[in-house]
């Protein structure tokens, strides 16, 4: 299977483990990822807030770059890039005025027929559980994980059209297929504080703190995510959060692709598992998941 791949800015700098593990897992599944040529930032939440036309143009320009590849399907691991690309394609298709103005700003005409998939949807629905299960070398038996989806993958449903925005199950399905013990909770799509990490750190401590406390209370041994912003907030702010609570927990926050890679028998360093602040290696060793 050949698909276009749109990693986004974070995966090149602060979320290298997500990029690394995605590429490794796809290689195990015989999926060829062809990176979109000369892609640009999608504008992220800053662009979306400050300038509607700029944000739309950046996303549209990227759609044009992806269309050049002549692949019908593009897989986008970053949930924000996913939502921006999808939203732009919809808006340009539905709104004639936007379509005309975008043709001016990006100096090309879009076909607008890309199948834009986020990483969870791609693995759950396009690759499928049977193909994933066929690669398992080490089932995650007895590993208690809690799936955390965050906002951008599923909300707003009018844009994402993906899974259930209040109770998604795609990641649960994948984790169960890998043999893990999947815990259920009410916080699957509650916000972690997202881009306020730097500017309103106390807000992120409050929101991410709520998630971490609930996950610990449920007995989770790891939180599994599909978003680099969720990963960063839950991992990087965790020390401060437990310190304020006078608790001494260490709850690893892993990417879904890292967990898949472990079950496929890949080495922890090839999955970037040595790069997190909260070290997941002790619990993985205890569970017999390291080679």
């Amino acid at each position, binding site marked *: 299977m050949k698909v276009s791949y749109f990693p986004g*800015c974070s995966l090149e700098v*602060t979320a290298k483990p997500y990029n690394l593990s995605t590429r490794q897992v796809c290689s195990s599944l015989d999926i060829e990822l062809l990176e979109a040529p000369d892609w640009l930032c999608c504008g992220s*939440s800053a662009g979306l*807030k*400050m300038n509607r036309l700029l*944000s739309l143009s950046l996303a549209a320009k990227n759609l044009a770059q992806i269309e050049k590849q002549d692949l019908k399907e593009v897989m986008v691991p970053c949930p924000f890039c996913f939502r921006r690309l999808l939203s732009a394609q919809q808006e340009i298709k539905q709104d004639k005025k936007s379509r005309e103005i975008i043709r001016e700003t990006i*100096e090309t005409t879009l076909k607008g027929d890309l199948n834009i998939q986020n990483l969870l949807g791609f693995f759950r629905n396009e690759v499928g559980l049977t193909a994933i299960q066929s690669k398992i070398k080490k089932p995650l038996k007895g590993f208690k994980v809690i799936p955390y989806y965050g906002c951008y993958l599923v909300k707003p449903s009018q844009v994402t059209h993906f899974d259930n925005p209040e109770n998604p199950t795609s990641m649960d399905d994948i984790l169960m297929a890998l043999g893990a013990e999947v815990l259920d909770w009410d916080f699957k799509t509650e916000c972690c504080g997202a881009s306020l990490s730097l500017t309103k750190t106390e807000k992120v401590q409050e929101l991410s703190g709520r998630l971490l406390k609930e996950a610990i209370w449920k007995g989770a041994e790891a939180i599994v995510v599909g978003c680099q912003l969720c990963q960063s907030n839950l991992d990087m702010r965790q020390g401060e959060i437990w310190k304020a609570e006078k608790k001494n927990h260490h709850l690893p926050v892993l990417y879904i692709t890292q967990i898949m890679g472990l079950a496929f028998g890949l080495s922890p360093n090839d999955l970037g598992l040595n790069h997190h602040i909260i070290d997941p290696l002790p619990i993985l060793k205890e569970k017999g998941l390291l080679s």
Partner: protein
Amino acid sequence: MLRLTGNPRERDFLNQIIQESGQNLLECLQCGKCSAGCPIASEAVGGPRQLIAAILIGMKERALKDPTWSYCVSCGTCATRCPVEINMYSVATALCEMAEKAKISPPERGIHLFEELFLKSVRKYGRVQELRTVMEFNLRTLNPFKDLAQGMTLMRKGAISPFDILKGKKKDKAISRLFSKVQQAENGE
């Protein structure tokens, strides 16, 4: 529920927001589901329902100074739960653009500064240089050692590289062209 029906000019602000955001705020039921689910709503940050109420009764200055749209992380929870599907992050964009044009200083300067620095980096390099943007923000807010411990740990573990901060990147020509085309379109050229 209060909806201005007198002098049509009193509805100028409301109509402008409706047009710019594409969200029909006149349908708002003031039920408060948005604020109940909003991650950033608090006593200090009123939340979407209050902000819509201010817009509906034409309180322009109050709306432009409302910290809600500054804090908004575009999580989309409000739009998902709203019975009439009003998307508040589109309203936030409309207010942000309007405040910028009216030269009204943004309600939360720190958040705004970060967003400006982020876009400055995109404009220069095409892809945002995250670590440089973080460094610049910390320096500009006179907090140069913020999150130093986490940064050092990530560096020690090889998760981030000091080269990513120092080396920069060459300027991207395609992005400069895109930014100027957007500006031309905005100026009606």
